């Protein structure tokens, strides 16, 4: 039904366009015909020609009556003959024939030529002939005029007809053009509505995806609680159980060992809650970085010292200090996080390099480990909240470290990216707005 409707709509549009163009062509053709007919030709000046002939006949009569010189008579005679000859020429003769006025005219001319004064024609007979001709011409003159006006009127009628035709065609074209415009506007409106519908559907889909991501986050959070909170609690519970077991009281060594285990478990829990709290503050926008110019090499060195893992981690500084515009507390937090990950996920006998450097106008700090690295899927999801590599489920961690580190980097106008290291391992690159010290 819809496709058939579309077909008909297209056919209708095509027909309208054809009608519109066709009418315009008709109008143009008529206007061209009008333009061609707008010329005045000398043939339409028959009244004047006829009048001139009459004047020449009268002039000859006058010359014959007033004993004018023979050369004057000859000139007047020649002129009268020339006017009669002119009437005999194509267009004039056709006009006179159509008006029914041609009859007899050439008889007058022949009679005149028989009395040619240059060849000694009878002057008296010539005078009588010219007088008669003058009368005959006078009778026909009004008919010539009325015929001329009739021809002119017919021509004007024809022009008016062409004009009306052109006008009708233009009005028709206007109407079909208006219909065309209405159809096109309607089409445009439909298209617009379809576009709005599509946008609304896309927005719905986006909302749905966000909802899904949120519920996925809650699921992962529950997972995290199960693994990362329950494990230290279980450790503490087991220690307490050992200390309060009936029978022989525990030796001071055992008590100290159990207390150490319990304190480590508590420390893990505190770190976990600290991270979660910081993340929550970042999410709320409650963390305001105190940006200033700082030596990235020194921040990295301090972070390495704080971890107390100096032997495995090597700081490789370049030949000039790398200065960044950053918040040293937040930057330390990021580097501690990256170093913690590198230590946790790479073999205990492998080296970890920390390389502060400049790249363009950005200050960088690469943390390179030689662990098992990440699969492309893990890389793609590394910055999702609560995402943890499937292989490391049982290692301690909140799944919030990398997302938090990236948040903190971006808060300072920088970024955090991960990429696989050639020959195995991972390179975590922190970039911050740099400042070249000159």
């Amino acid at each position, binding site marked *: 039904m819809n496709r058939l409707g579309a077909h008909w709509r297209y056919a209708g549009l095509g027909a309208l366009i054809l009608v519109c163009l066709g009418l315009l062509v008709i109008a143009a053709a008529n206007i061209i015909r009008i333009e061609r007919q707008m010329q*005045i030709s*000398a043939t339409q000046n028959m009244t004047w020609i006829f009048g001139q002939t009459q004047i020449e006949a009268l002039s000859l009569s006058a010359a014959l009556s007033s004993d004018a010189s023979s050369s004057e008579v000859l000139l007047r005679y*020649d*002129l009268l003959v*020339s006017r009669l000859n002119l009437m005999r*020429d*194509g267009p004039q003769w056709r006009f006179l024939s159509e008006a029914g006025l041609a009859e007899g005219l050439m008889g007058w001319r022949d009679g005149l030529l028989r009395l040619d004064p240059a060849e000694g024609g009878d002057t008296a007979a010539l005078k009588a002939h010219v007088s008669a001709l003058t009368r005959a011409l006078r009778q026909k003159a009004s008919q010539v005029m009325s015929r001329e006006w009739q021809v002119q009127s017919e021509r004007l009628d024809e022009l008016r007809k062409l004009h009306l035709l052109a006008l009708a065609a233009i009005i028709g074209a206007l109407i079909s053009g208006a219909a065309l415009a209405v159809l096109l506007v309607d089409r445009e409106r439909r298209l617009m509505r379809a576009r709005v519908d599509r946008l609304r559907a896309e927005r719905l889909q986006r909302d749905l995806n966000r909802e899904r991501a949120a519920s996925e986050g809650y699921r992962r959070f529950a997972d995290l609680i199960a693994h990362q909170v329950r494990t230290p609690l279980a450790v503490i519970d087991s220690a307490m159980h050992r200390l309060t077991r009936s029978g022989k009281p525990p030796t001071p060594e055992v008590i100290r060992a159990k207390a150490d285990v319990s304190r480590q478990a508590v420390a893990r829990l505190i770190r976990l809650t600290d991270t979660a709290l910081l993340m929550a503050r970042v999410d709320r926008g409650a963390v305001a970085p105190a940006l200033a110019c700082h030596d990235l090499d020194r921040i990295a060195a301090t972070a390495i010292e704080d971890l107390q893992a100096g032997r495995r981690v090597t700081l490789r500084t370049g030949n000039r200090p790398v200065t960044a515009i950053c918040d040293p507390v937040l930057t330390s937090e990021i580097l501690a996080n990256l170093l913690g990950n590198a230590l946790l996920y790479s073999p205990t006998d492998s080296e970890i390099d920390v390389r502060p450097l400049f790249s363009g106008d950005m200050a960088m700090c690469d943390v390179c480990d030689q662990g098992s690295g990440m699969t492309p899927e893990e890389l793609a999801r590394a910055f999702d909240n609560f995402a943890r590599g499937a292989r490391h489920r049982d290692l301690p961690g909140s799944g919030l470290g990398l997302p938090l580190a990236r948040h903190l980097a971006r808060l300072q106008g920088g970024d955090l990216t991960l990429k696989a290291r050639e020959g195995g391992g991972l390179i975590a690159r922190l970039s911050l707005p740099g400042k070249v010290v000159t």
Partner: protein
Amino acid sequence: MIVLKRLLFGSVLMALGASGAVAQEVLLTLTGAVADGEVKLTRADLDALEWHEIATSTSVTDGQPVFRGVLMRDILDRAQASGDTVTARALNDYVIEIPMDDFHEFDVIAALYMDGIALTPRDKGPVWIVYPRDDHSVLADIRYDMRWVWQLSALHVQ
């Protein structure tokens, strides 16, 4: 359309049997801004100029007659005419002003022959101003048709 023909017209006239008296008959009188205030041109004078032919339709005849004669601008040069307008007068006292530019813009001729037959006062002669009407569409207009003076007898230059 315009065929240049340089003819020694005197000898042609002799061949036609025309007498010396015909050759000496004054056809055109130029007055006004011309050499010595007045120049009379005889048939022999016109014969001495370069001849041109135009085949063109006219408003008062059928078909495309071939006109033969001399260029109007050559006649005016011959009389050393200088001015902007030429007032043409015919035997029947028909008078019309023609801008001088017409003669330089178009090859307007003073025709003496139509289809090989000499024009006479009993027709539209002896001289008929002919425009190359078919070569320039602008000339097919009543405003130019009026300048086709037949039975031309005098030119007054201003």
